[in-house]
């Protein structure tokens, strides 16, 4: 059986709904079930997320005072590892995991496209992530002094990018080709549409990162590290993925989650849906940042296109903000934790985009110190994590079959809002220190506040993980197919958790909210 074939247990014969496969080591390691693969992604990424935010807090703590608890090299490598890790080990896989699980359900498919390839991608990502972490810890981070460890880090990063791209291809192909009859592209649920846009942008930008890594590795391995592989400039060549505008590409699926959560938990159809789709599309177009590599194109941030992209990003964001705000007005918001987390994500996204717009204004000179850009990065990644936490809370009952403890989710609303805002805004304030000399004296205090913020976001990741696990515990209230009672899209039409094959016969979809049509 080829990688592109469909395993029998994930067969497309939706009319024959079989009971779920009983978990065992064989079914865990050999499964091609998109639900299991998606769940593994989410669980592993949350664990990496907790570690990554703790590492970010520690590397920020190193900036405080003169007597640091870490050596300069260790702190630098820890900071760089957490910078890249939070994107490639946490945010992208979190969204990819949710996409692998939820997109087939939302589009009415019985499986993800190429289920074996999706499973291979997940295991390759997990293995490469482990190697990346271990190699980084044995002085193999960017600019590390152990040559073989550095090579291992580069190869592990290459492996995990290839894995993420393969996983993305599976989800994109599902959204493009496996939609149930009647589900035209403009009727695709918001999360699936945002995965389509976000995945396409990842597919067109992450390979450029792979190209950077390839050059660094070849130079490091065969040319003695004199050009691309020179220790001092290795990280500079990959930094662009954590910088404006590319950083926005990792927020796109979050917008879809926010829209779906708000629509369901306010009980309102999303008004001006096409405008929301347009806003997500425009957000995607404006986040293509592979061309703006400071190491290759030093004056990229002085480029008019770069500055225009940073400023124009406000438009789709505000459009999206207005569109989902209307749902609050039209519906009756239910005070559940996923709704709160969605609002937190929306607020942090707006702050990140505002910070990006300020960063793009050259006369403000906010690009001088790097603190402001670091603050924007923290805001953006915290926004993405909040969106993922909202998605995990929202689809948790579908994934586990039980309702999670809502109290944990509500606590997480406060933790992620506080953590994201403290972690990001304090660094943004510090970014103004070249204009307001008084701020230089507050350097240590602001960095401590930011470090505490990062630690809080780590706690937020832990709470999201506990919330998901609490739904799977014995005695958790059993979730109905439509766990919230106001579901609009197809994932709420199949049992919780979905059986093999997901659906029985589906009616032809006639609107973006097929479950509401059914009620009518």
């Amino acid at each position: 059986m080829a990688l592109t074939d469909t395993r029998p247990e994930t067969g497309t014969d939706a009319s024959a709904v079989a009971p779920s496969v009983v978990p065992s080591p064989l079914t865990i390691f050999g499964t091609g079930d998109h639900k299991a693969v998606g769940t593994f992604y989410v669980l592993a990424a949350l664990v990496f997320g907790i570690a990554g935010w703790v590492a970010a807090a520690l590397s920020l703590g190193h900036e405080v005072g003169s007597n640091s608890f870490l050596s300069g090299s260790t702190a630098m490598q820890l900071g760089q590892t957490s910078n890249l890790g939070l994107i490639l080990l946490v945010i992208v896989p979190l969204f990819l995991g949710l996409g692998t699980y939820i997109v087939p359900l939302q589009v009415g498919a019985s499986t993800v496209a190429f289920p074996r390839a999706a499973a291979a991608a997940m295991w390759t990502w997990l293995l490469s992530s482990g190697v990346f972490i271990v190699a980084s810890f044995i002085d193999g981070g960017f600019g590390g002094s152990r040559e073989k460890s550095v090579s291992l880090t580069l190869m592990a990063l290459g492996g995990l990018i290839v894995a993420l791209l393969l996983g993305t291809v599976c989800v994109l192909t599902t959204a493009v080709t496996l939609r149930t009859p009647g589900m035209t592209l403009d009727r695709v649920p918001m999360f699936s549409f945002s995965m389509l846009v976000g995945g396409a942008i990842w597919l067109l930008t992450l390979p450029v990162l792979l190209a950077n890594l390839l050059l660094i590795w070849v130079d490091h391995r065969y040319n003695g590290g004199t050009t691309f592989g020179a220790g001092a400039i290795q990280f500079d060549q990959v930094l662009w993925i954590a910088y404006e505008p590319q950083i926005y590409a990792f927020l796109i699926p979050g917008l879809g989650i926010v829209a779906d959560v708000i629509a369901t938990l306010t009980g309102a159809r999303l008004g001006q849906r096409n405008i929301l789709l347009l806003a997500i599309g425009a957000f995607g177009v404006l986040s293509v940042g592979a061309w703006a590599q400071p190491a290759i194109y030093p004056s990229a941030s002085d480029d008019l296109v770069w500055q225009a992209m940073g400023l124009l990003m406000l438009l789709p964001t505000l459009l999206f903000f207005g569109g989902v705000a209307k749902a609050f007005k039209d519906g009756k918001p239910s005070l559940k934790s996923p709704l709160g987390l969605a609002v937190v994500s929306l607020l942090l996204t707006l702050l990140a985009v505002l910070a990006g717009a300020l960063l793009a204004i050259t006369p403000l000179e906010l690009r001088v110190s790097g603190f402001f850009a670091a603050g924007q990065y923290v805001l953006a990644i915290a926004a993405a994590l909040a969106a993922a936490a909202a998605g995990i809370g929202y689809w948790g009952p579908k994934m586990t079959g039980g309702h999670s403890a809502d109290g944990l989710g509500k606590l997480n609303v406060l933790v992620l809002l506080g953590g994201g805002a403290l972690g990001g805004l304090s660094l943004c304030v510090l970014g103004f220190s070249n204009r307001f000399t008084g701020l230089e004296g507050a350097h240590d205090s602001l960095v401590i506040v930011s470090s505490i913020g990062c630690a809080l976001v780590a706690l937020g990741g832990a709470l999201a993980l506990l919330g998901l696990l609490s739904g799977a515990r014995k005695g958790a209230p059993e979730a109905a197919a439509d766990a919230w009672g106001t579901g609009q899209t197809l994932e709420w039409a199949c049992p919780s958790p979905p059986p093999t094959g997901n659906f029985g016969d589906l009616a032809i979809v006639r609107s973006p909210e097929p479950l509401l049509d059914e009620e009518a």
Partner: protein
Amino acid sequence: MTAHVLPPAPAVQRPRVLVVGAAFAAAASFTVFIGLIGIYLAARVDVVGSGTAWLPEGATIPLQQPNTMFITLIMSVFTMQWAVAAIAKNDRVNSYLAMGLTLMLGIATIVMTTYLWYLMELDIASGIQGVLIYTITGAHIVMLVLAMIFVALMGLRALGGQFTARQHDGITAAAVFWYAMVAVYALIWISIYVTK
């Protein structure tokens, strides 16, 4: 006398999952080279702008071998399309022959590339030029080998009777990836071999 009405043919399997997936994979592979060639051109502009020649002393890039490879790969586009057209007409023999020829043209390209590396007399440790040229051309060989494996696998599946005139997405998907590989070579040909 009433005419015999045949039952309707079964619906053609849609959508074309494998073709779409291969197109996405081809797009991602193409983007790797866009990135590499972008960095190559930026580095070349810097070196030439500083008043020195791009290629290090003693190194040379002859054009005969790159041109031959380009012609070979263009021929392979025709043989690959021949395979797709033949299987679409259920002409399996021609399809096997076309895929076999495509693989042979791929092998010829690998041989010619290694011969070109020998002729260039460019040391990978000679500086930024060696790193860039060998990385880009080496990565293209990797993509070519992947495309050949894809074609060979689909050929084996065709031999196993998996593809028909109505359902031959595997061969079409392999063709999509093959065309992307040839398009990548066209970029390399113009930006590295012709421009030098």
